[in-house]
């Protein structure tokens, strides 16, 4: 093969995520001859380089930063080799192995190497027999780390224009970059995007072309929001301040994964120093965040040990948008934030998040359970309002698009105890935040029994009742129920356990940030009926795991049918489903256990394998009587009955 001499040594490097650092550690890529650009500061007007390039080097600080390169893929050159260095990545992230896709150029692959260096950084080298698009390779790499995006924020299709616009669609490969003055280029005989998001400064020339689908936002460049874009009251472009003005929180990165329940010591501080924000513990910086406020998973890991982070909102910040984004990000990750937003800040953070922050008493951080409940409430508010999906749902609506319908959940509830039907239906009926359809499988029970009929009549939502032959085994009963259902997701619930009203919506949130095929929660709370005591067991939550509580399984229909449903056996159907999903290559995620409490009755009435002693052998906390944590929203407990252990 003849090699053209002028491209033999052309090496182009791009770095991203090093705003706070004086000098990006470009020597990590091992090519002294490369010319480097900051990918956060490149314009979207034209490809990175006009000349042919032999090798592309990407130096990303974290997987979060890699995800911001993905939307810019079309600007990257065609190359014969690519080197990616990710300087740090959390332990919970998958190794950066490309998840190969439909790209035909993968046929030219000659060599692929993934190494973890002793300093913890990842180095990926790929060489091809011919020219391949660097953007395509990076896309598969990003997908390899986060898992294939299911039900992500991909509608509408967006075109991004202007410096730093990739903050708005991290990890989205379906983006067409457009010149800052427009128009949106065509992509295979169709407009490149249904909506255009353009980042602007005071000097930005006006948009050429159709402005009806245009959204303008202040520019996030060089790591900071331009000061002129940060005047209180407006977004610098005349847009009144609302949550929609700040770039979204990338929930695949900044999320509750790895939440640490035990944290002590002083509350962390927040300040601006040396051209970056710093989160401090006793005046020493724990982590540094660029002024754009874009958090990475490493920042979250570093603040996990702090009981909370106090942010003085009215501290005369140069770029309040960056501060707002940090606050939203920390909240989305479940880091307890202590802040007192006034009216202006409430408009930026959203009323729900602001009310939560204002209503919190920092004294509660000392109690691990109250701290975790606050964290869960923060996650909900921040992820819904400020996550990429939530932000684009709102932007699409404002742009005249009908956003996709939220996914529906079918609850599979199987019972053979008529006296529990009323209770069980009340637990499903109080679920909120997701469209729920209930499939009540009566196992050897008639729907005409008065208790059953009354409970079904009183159920407020969509319900379908099926009667199943008592001779059928449990697995088959559940499969019958699944067959009768129509939701996008299937959730299994038990007839005698307690569920908090946000049980299903929290699982759906967990599914979104974890990208898992099956999610569930930990069985942490048990009410031991025979001794009228409630215990909280020790459990590791917010992790990818092999096991979740069987009565909290929420699985996508696709994954469920892919493994052939439940096995036709009388017991252990849950664990068998988990096994099958794992075997089929699916991922399982275990969310927090604050929405779920198991009723542990007398040993005679149930198929309990565990004797009651095991619950008392090692527990985190114990209460006399029936205790429900605040998130359960049950009106039984009085905190005075809590045991001081």
């Amino acid at each position: 093969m003849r090699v053209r001499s002028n491209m033999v040594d052309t090496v182009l490097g791009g770095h991203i995520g090093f705003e706070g650092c004086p000098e990006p550690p470009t020597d990590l890529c091992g090519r002294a001859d490369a010319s480097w650009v900051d990918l956060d500061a490149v314009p979207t007007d034209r490809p990175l380089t006009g000349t042919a390039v032999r090798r592309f080097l990407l130096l990303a600080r974290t997987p979060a930063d890699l995800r911001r390169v993905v939307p810019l893929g079309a600007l990257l050159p065609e190359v014969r080799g690519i080197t990616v260095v990710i300087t740090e990545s959390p332990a919970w992230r998958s190794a950066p192995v490309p998840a190969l896709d439909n790209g035909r150029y993968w046929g030219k692959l000659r060599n692929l190497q993934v190494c973890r260096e002793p300093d913890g950084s990842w180095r990926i080298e790929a060489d091809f027999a011919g020219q391949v698009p660097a953007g395509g390779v990076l896309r598969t790499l990003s997908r390899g780390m986060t898992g294939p995006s299911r039900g992500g924020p991909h509608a509408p299709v967006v075109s991004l224009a202007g410096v730093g616009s990739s903050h708005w669609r991290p990890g989205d490969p379906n983006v067409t970059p457009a010149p800052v003055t427009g128009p949106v280029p065509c992509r295979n005989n169709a407009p490149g995007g249904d909506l255009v998001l353009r980042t602007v400064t005071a000097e930005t020339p006006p948009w050429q072309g159709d402005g009806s689908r245009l959204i303008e936002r202040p520019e996030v460049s060089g790591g900071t929001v331009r000061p002129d874009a940060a005047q209180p009251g407006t977004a610098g472009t005349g847009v009144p301040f609302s949550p929609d003005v700040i770039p979204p929180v990338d929930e695949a990165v900044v999320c509750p994964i790895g939440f640490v329940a035990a944290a002590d010591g002083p509350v962390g501080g927040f300040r601006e120093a040396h051209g970056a924000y710093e989160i401090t513990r006793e005046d020493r910086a724990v982590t540094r965040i660029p002024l754009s406020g874009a958090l990475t998973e490493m920042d979250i890991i570093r603040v996990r040990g702090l009981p909370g982070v106090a942010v003085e909102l009215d501290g005369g910040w140069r770029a309040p948008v960056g501060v707002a984004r940090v606050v939203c990000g920390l909240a989305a990750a479940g880091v307890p934030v202590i802040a007192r937003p006034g009216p202006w800040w409430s408009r930026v953070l959203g009323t729900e998040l602001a009310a939560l922050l204002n209503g919190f008493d920092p004294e509660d951080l000392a109690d691990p359970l109250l701290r975790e409940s606050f964290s869960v409430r923060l996650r909900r508010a921040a992820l819904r309002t400020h996550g990429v999906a939530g932000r684009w749902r709102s932007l699409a609506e404002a742009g005249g698009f009908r956003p996709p319908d939220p996914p529906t959940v079918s609850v599979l509830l199987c019972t053979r105890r008529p006296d529990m039907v009323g209770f069980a239906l009340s637990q499903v009926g109080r679920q909120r935040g997701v469209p729920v359809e209930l499939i009540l499988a009566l196992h050897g029970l008639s729907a005409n029994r008065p208790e059953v009929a009354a409970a079904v009549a009183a159920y407020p939502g969509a319900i379908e009742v099926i009667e199943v032959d008592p001779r059928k085994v449990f697995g088959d009963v559940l499969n019958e129920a699944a067959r009768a259902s129509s939701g996008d997701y299937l959730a299994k619930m038990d007839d005698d356990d307690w569920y908090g009203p946000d049980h299903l919506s929290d699982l759906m949130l967990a599914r979104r940030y974890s990208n898992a095929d099956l999610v569930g929660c930990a069985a942490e709370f048990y009410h031991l009926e025979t001794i009228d005591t409630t215990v909280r067991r020790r459990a590791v939550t917010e992790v990818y795991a092999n096991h979740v509580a069987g009565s909290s399984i929420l699985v996508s229909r696709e994954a469920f049918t892919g493994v052939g449903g439940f096995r036709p056996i009388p017991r252990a159907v849950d664990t068998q489903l988990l096994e099958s999903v794992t075997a089929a290559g699916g991922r399982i995620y275990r969310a927090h256990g604050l929405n779920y409490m198991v009723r542990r009755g007398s040993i005679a009435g149930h198929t309990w394998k565990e004797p009651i002693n095991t619950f008392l052998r090692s527990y985190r906390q114990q209460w006399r009587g029936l205790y429900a944590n605040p998130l359960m929203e049950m009106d039984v407990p009085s905190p005075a009955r809590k045991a001081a252990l």
Partner: protein
Amino acid sequence: MVQPRIRCNDYGTLPVPEPGEWLPRKSVSVVIPAYRCDETLPLALASLAGQSYPSHLLEVVVVDTGGAVRLSGPGPVPERTRVVRVQDGGEGVNARQRGAAVAEGDVVHWLDADVVLDREHIETQMRWHHLAGYLVVLGQVRFHERRAGVFTASEVEAAVVSGTAAKLFGEDEGVPHQVMEMWERTGDLRQAGSDAFTGYVGTAASLPADLFRSVGGLDVSLPLGHDAEFAFRLAQAGAVFVADRRSVCHHLGGSAAMRRRRESRRHTMPYITERIPHYRSLRNHPNRQYLVPNVEAVVDASGRSAESVQATVNGLLAGRMSDVSVTLVGPWGLLAGEQRFPLDDPSADLRLIRESFRGEARVRFAERPAETAFPVPFRFTCPAGWVPRPDALERLLKFADDNALGLVSLVLEEGEEMVAARLERTAAVRRALLLAAPGEEIGDVMHQVSGTVWEDGLSWGLRPMGATDDEPAVDPEIERWKRKVRYWRRQARLLRRQLDRTPRGRIRGMVAEGLRLVRSRRQAPGPDPQTADRAIRGGRRKIER
């Protein structure tokens, strides 16, 4: 009156009014033992006459043990003052007991005859007694060098009425009682927990008369240490100790009395060691019994096999905590009748159990257990057939103390019925019994005044008797040391191996070997026994590897 439920000794939740801003209803009897105090008693009475507490609610009982007290002397005396003469007196405990016995007030307030009170001394203490019926209120005593004779009774009354009693002593601010250090440390006893009773001082203390009677009054057989012993029993009865610094009392002639108090320590020790298990450091003998044990273990023998009861009681008596008494509950009265041929006797097991422990001083037999273990601080109820490991009681007591628990329930077995053992703190039970509304579950009240918790019996060293037979209950302490030995042996082996691997060690070894060979050749032509032995050992080691 619905009484507030105070947790441990934390009386800080009580809404105590400011002096002068509340309405007194309860009457108080001030009891003063008087013995050779002609000079000071008039001063004490004068300061009582000047109290802010309403005089119609204030009674003074002077217990005269010297037969020399006259109330007709100069100086003011409270309206309702009487003298009780005690023939067999001496100073101290007997007089107090007698005085309290005749006192008619709702509250008994102890005072010494050589004190001068601040104007609100009685009132500040009495405001607490209007809030709850199980408080022991302690005043602050200051010791002044100035003695009687410097001021007259009338001067004292005038100073007290005008609220300037402290000025009688001029520059001398007085020395605080040494117990103040402990008050200081525990937030005026609020955080003292079960230690609160050690902050008791009998010089200026008050308590409800009912409470005084319910604990059986003072122990008059004690010449010294009766205050500490009384306070201990009050604590076991569920009392809360309130330290009120605003209730000030000035002691005339100070440090000498305090010195004397310290000297008396030696003479008090045996009495309180026998009677107050709370002072663990005094009970440092590994294997002794005391008048009041630390734990009363209760085993129900009725209807149980002799073997199961024997196993449990023997297990309890074999514990590292020897300071325990066992109460065996059963229908022992049935055994009074004539003895039948053993194999036909329906109460044969009962008889066997009775005989098994005839000579064991720590075992008592009772038809039914007392309502509480009072004054024993803990009761451990263990079903027959379950055997505690030697360290079980000790660990459980520590657990209960560390977590301020009043009740630890231990699940043993879950069958048709729950089998459980329980450790109760007498103070918590007594307070709960005092406070429970009719029909209210005692356990719920105990949870409010202390803490209750369920635990797994096995983890706390309670095993079914069969299991302990297969696997003798080895003292875990022995096990621990054995583990340590194994650990260090392993450690030594590893280090030795590491040493073998280091070149220096190997070289040194080779050099030494060479030298030895050279020497042995020089010394004797035959093979050196040492070297031969070493070679064999080395060879064996290689094979092992």
